[in-house]
């Protein structure tokens, strides 16, 4: 009877949370099929740990941590070395705007980042976690989160620039102070 109860609770948890977890996995590994594999692996581990996790809040946090860890290690194995296409694909969507181009380019360049940098971006800018929460989920220290985030943003900025794409210029004018801060103040070399 207890076994059936665990299964029922687990099925309810999967029904409630699998879509959100699948989205996070997709952003980390790059395609839906692989994301589903990662999610299934994470859910298997979550089921194995179900009894000791207890509360649904602990289950959710645990599932997300396992998902991110699985996605990160999986992505390292499978995506390492992939390079972005030199040209963007033909635009066949319904969003004929510069924003579409920005998103396509951004997605391709995000896919070339090291696994941990990509994970940091997903947790910070999709899951909206703080840097401390991100550090906890990834099992790294806060300093590493900040350095990984900075490197990822710098890489994306450089690659977008090299492709002639300036999302900042099209979306809204860049404040002068922003440029000053990013290029000089934190380096102490101004």
């Amino acid at each position, binding site marked *: 009877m207890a076994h059936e109860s665990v*299964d029922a609770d*687990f099925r309810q948890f*999967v029904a409630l949370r*699998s*879509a959100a977890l*699948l*989205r996070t996995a*997709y*952003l980390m590994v790059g395609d*839906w099929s692989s994301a589903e594999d990662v*999610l*299934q692996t994470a*859910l298997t581990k979550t*089921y*194995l740990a179900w009894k000791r996790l207890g509360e649904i*809040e*602990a289950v*959710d*946090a*645990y599932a997300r941590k396992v998902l991110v860890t699985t996605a990160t*290690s999986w992505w*390292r*194995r499978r995506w390492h070395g992939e390079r972005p296409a030199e040209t963007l694909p033909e635009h066949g969507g319904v969003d004929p705007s510069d924003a579409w181009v*920005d*998103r396509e380019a*951004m997605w391709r360049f995000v896919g070339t980042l*090291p696994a*941990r*940098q990509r994970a940091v971006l*997903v947790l*910070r800018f*999709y899951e909206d976690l703080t840097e*401390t*929460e991100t550090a906890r989920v990834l*099992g790294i220290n*806060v*300093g*590493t*989160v*900040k*350095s*990984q*985030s*900075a490197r990822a*943003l*710098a890489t*994306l*900025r450089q690659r977008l620039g090299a492709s002639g794409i300036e*999302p*900042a210029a099209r*979306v*809204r004018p860049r404040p002068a*102070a*922003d440029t*000053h801060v990013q*290029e*000089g*103040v*934190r380096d*102490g070399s101004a």
Partner: protein
Amino acid sequence: MGLLEETIRDTFAHRAGVPPATDGLADRAIAGAQRVRRRRSVVASAAAVLSVALLAFGALTVATRPGHQASDTAAGPTGAATLESTLPVEIVVDGTVYQSVDGRLRLPDLGAGSVQQVWRMATGYLVAMYVSGAQASASLWYVPTSDPLTNTPSMIENGEAVMVAAGTPQRPGIQVAWRDDAGVHVGVFIGGTVADTVTTQVPDVDLSGVDWSARLYPTTVVGGAVVLAGTATGSGLGVSDVWFPARGDYVSTAVAAPFSAMLAVTPDGEHIIGTYHPTKGDKASCLGEYDPDGFALVNQLCPSLFSLDGKLLPSPDGRWWLVIDPTQVRLYDAQRVWQGAGPVRTWPMAGVENGGWADGGTALLTTPDSVLVMRTDSAVLNEITLPDATTPPIVVADLR
């Protein structure tokens, strides 16, 4: 928020908009779990005799893979991994401390959250717990082991973040620092509690009139200073400041010196190893060793030999640097780094997350499902897999 970050958010939101239907996920996960349990049962039966022998030595040995061979084999043996009969340092896996001498210790229930870091003390363990979500918080627990009659765990401190570090000549004793609504605090752990606590207020906006802010958290102690780090909103760039509790001054490294990110603390606890950019806007980075008092450069190397995308772990005797990045692990002779010497050994291996030194010649590295034993006199990384682990192993920092 910066415009680049807005584009990233927008990209992620559009990409992840509507996931495909995933029928049968729960059933497949349950079936997968049942297969794992059956496999565990078979493995447990087959390995019973071996396990008894190994656990007598306090070993965590579930399986081994062939050793990872360094690219430079001149200084060490080659061949398959040998089974480690004892762990060179303690590790925590799924709430159990695997001790290098005494066997296993199951950590007591410390309430909600997950174990984040563990430090070994003479009389027990300090355990940092973290609760994620909207009410994210961190807490530090003392788990005494010296007296089985009084080994009830007690919460030492709690707040947004907690940290434990070895003492330094300027700040002797085990240092405990944390941040809460009242500010940042640091004190000395003694007798199961924190004494001599000093508090400071940390400005969230501290960048010369620029509309930029960062929430900083204590990360370590160097010399007489507590190092605080955070990420500036709107840029994603790192911020590291130093606070001298005894003197009362607080220094923002943003305006004090060329300094980009802290990589490590020298084994004597006196200096910071970090990176900086030599000129404004330069993408190339230099390696620097800093005295935190005034951020004077004691050593520097431009350009840096390595583009650190992970961790730098100096050996306790200062002889070696172990550098972990996403695709490889490298061992450097620390005395020759500043002259530009390359790595002594390189192990091409992805997935290494963290590690710690057991002594001047042995280090333990962790991946999500294994630990690797690295010896400076061997070109082989011996890997011990943990197929049953549900959380990545944590290396216990020994502060005894």
